[in-house]
């Protein structure tokens, strides 16, 4: 078991290294991409560009630049923005992280609850109209672009229906800190939570339904039925527990991706100043250090949650320990 964990961690560090090199190459070494020319602005003279290169250390060899950037992100943490000169990048990412965590955490609670209920109901009423209705709704949830759902939510809760009793409580777009007002935090986030959760409710409900139907064919279910358990006990106590494994795997990956900036579109639409929003702003101004920092932060989250899922898997299921 310890060996498995160790090997997984080594693999994780290797993948992280690969990603950081890839990101660095994308932004600093793509043929034609010239960071100095971008900082200097359009129609800059060659002398200006040379001075910018000198100032930002862009004339050094690429491996040295890479090393310096990684040192500034991970060790000294004093990487500064190219756009707002002097502004430190790493603390900004850490300031934005709680917003993203609030958004994704709340949405995750909603999507897990709904997905389990919908998936179990669909499997229990398999091939009836209830099942068909739930699955069509799930499929529609998967098919909607999240930024459009968010825009529509804004249209109704901030616009057309804002003056009706239904949505008059919705605060203006933006984040309210939990420590300032827990109830305000909840009110500001409930619409973004639902918006972000819709896709995953659909996705997980479908996965869970399929897993449940497969599990119901297993021998241990026949045993449970044979010893006289009711159909509900069989479904909820025996089959559901076994089927949740497939959902847990997905959850680890999706949670990591979302916390790492996958919730960018939701944050942009609802004006929440999270990590995704930070990335978006940095993209608009082409602030390379900020983009590097947010993308690396994102991949750390994804890679770590991948590793955690694998290790948990190995802990639960001894068969997985021998693989890889």
């Amino acid at each position, binding site marked *: 078991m310890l060996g498995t964990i160790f090997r997984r961690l080594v693999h994780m560090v290797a993948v992280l290294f*690969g990603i950081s090199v890839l990101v660095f190459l994308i*932004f600093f070494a*793509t043929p034609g991409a010239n960071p100095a020319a971008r900082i200097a602005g359009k129609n800059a003279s060659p002398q200006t560009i040379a001075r910018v290169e000198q100032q930002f250390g862009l004339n050094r060899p690429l491996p040295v630049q890479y090393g310096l950037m990684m040192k500034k992100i991970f060790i000294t943490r004093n990487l500064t923005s190219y756009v707002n000169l002097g502004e430190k990048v790493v603390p900004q990412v850490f300031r934005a992280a709680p917003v993203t965590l609030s958004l994704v955490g709340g949405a995750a609670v909603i999507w897990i609850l709904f997905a389990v209920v919908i998936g179990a109901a669909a499997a229990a009423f398999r091939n009836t109209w209830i099942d068909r209705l739930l699955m069509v709704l799930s*499929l*529609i949830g998967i098919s909607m672009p999240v930024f459009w759902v968010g825009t529509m939510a804004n*249209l109704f809760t901030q616009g057309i229906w804002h003056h009706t009793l239904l949505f008059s409580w919705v605060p203006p777009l933006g984040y309210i800190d939990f420590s300032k007002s827990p109830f305000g935090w909840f009110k500001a986030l409930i619409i973004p939570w639902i918006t972000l959760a819709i896709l995953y409710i659909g996705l997980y409900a479908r996965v869970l339904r399929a897993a449940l139907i497969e599990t119901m064919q297993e021998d241990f279910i026949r045993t449970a039925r044979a010893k006289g358990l009711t159909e509900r006990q069989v479904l909820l106590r025996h089959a559901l527990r076994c089927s949740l494994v497939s959902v847990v795997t997905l959850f680890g990956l999706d949670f990591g991706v979302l916390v790492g*900036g996958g919730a960018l579109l939701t944050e942009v639409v609802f004006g929440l100043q999270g990590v995704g929003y930070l990335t978006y702003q940095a993209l608009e101004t082409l602030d390379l250090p900020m*983009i590097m920092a947010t993308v690396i932060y994102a*991949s750390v989250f*994804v890679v770590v949650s991948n590793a955690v899922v694998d290790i948990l898997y190995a802990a639960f299921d001894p068969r997985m320990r021998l693989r890889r």
Partner: protein
Amino acid sequence: MSDMTANETLAPPAPGYWATAGRKLVRDRAAMISLAVLVVIALLCAAAPWYARHVSHTNPFQSNLSGTVVRHGRTMEVLGAADNPLHLGIEPIGPSWRLGPYMLGADQQGRDVAARMLYGGRNSLLISFASAAVCLVLAALTGILAGFFGGWVDRGISFLLDALWAFPVFLLAISLSVVLIAHGIDFGLFRLDASSLSLPITIIGVIYVPYVARPVRGLVIGLRQSEYVMAAIGIGAPAWRILWYDILPNVISALVVFAPLIVALDLLTEAALSFLSIGVQPPAASWGTIIHDGESLIYTRPVVAIAPGLAIVITVLALNILGDGLRDALDPRAKLRN
């Protein structure tokens, strides 16, 4: 004639794999309706130039700031004074809801939204189908190479796929788009122009390769250990022959199952990139860029954002239902992202 008598005496030949699957698919009513919906949407989008010339009578790529249009017998400005008590600001003309100029109203530059929807649909569909083709071809190549040859080939490809897999897909697409949108890319023979559609096609095509390549690799590894491949190796069949006759047909049926799902994923990704204005570049349109245009008009002319969104939902829903039908018909156990 003699063939027919021979056939009558023998049992009819068993229908092939594809014929069986095709018949199953045709009997799947939801999948067939979805296919029809997709065909109708594609035909409508193909008719975009005709619509612009003969129905809307406007150029959907040119702003029309001071134009007028006759509606209910009155001449109205395309960009008129806003409908508030003080008439502050400017508001584009609303939808007329009947075939003709400005059926869905105008956007902020006075362009016909309905005509832009059709042109935008052309780009959205073109990008999503082309990038899905790029993705499936690359995934089949890498998956088959890694699975069939194993060893260091497999290790190299698998590490690349793992790194790409661990990268948040969406951020990868955004990063690549931001860097390349400004000046394109030039690798000598391989050249991508910044303003052409080939850029989003390539980016979106590449990022989902691991989603398909990993299941393909697993499939090929399984096939390589199957008895009939062992038998083929045993009688000394060359590698290309095994790949062509034993491996490829299986891989293709998996790819057919994945195809509509990847097209759906690509359509959503293209819309998101265009919404962030790093996909299709103006004055060209896609459904994503029109939603972006509509966001600033959301409280006054919501239809500009609602209509392209509905188009995306309907298309993606149809693709997903078709994908479910194909999976049931061909390979009930196939799983994307595996």
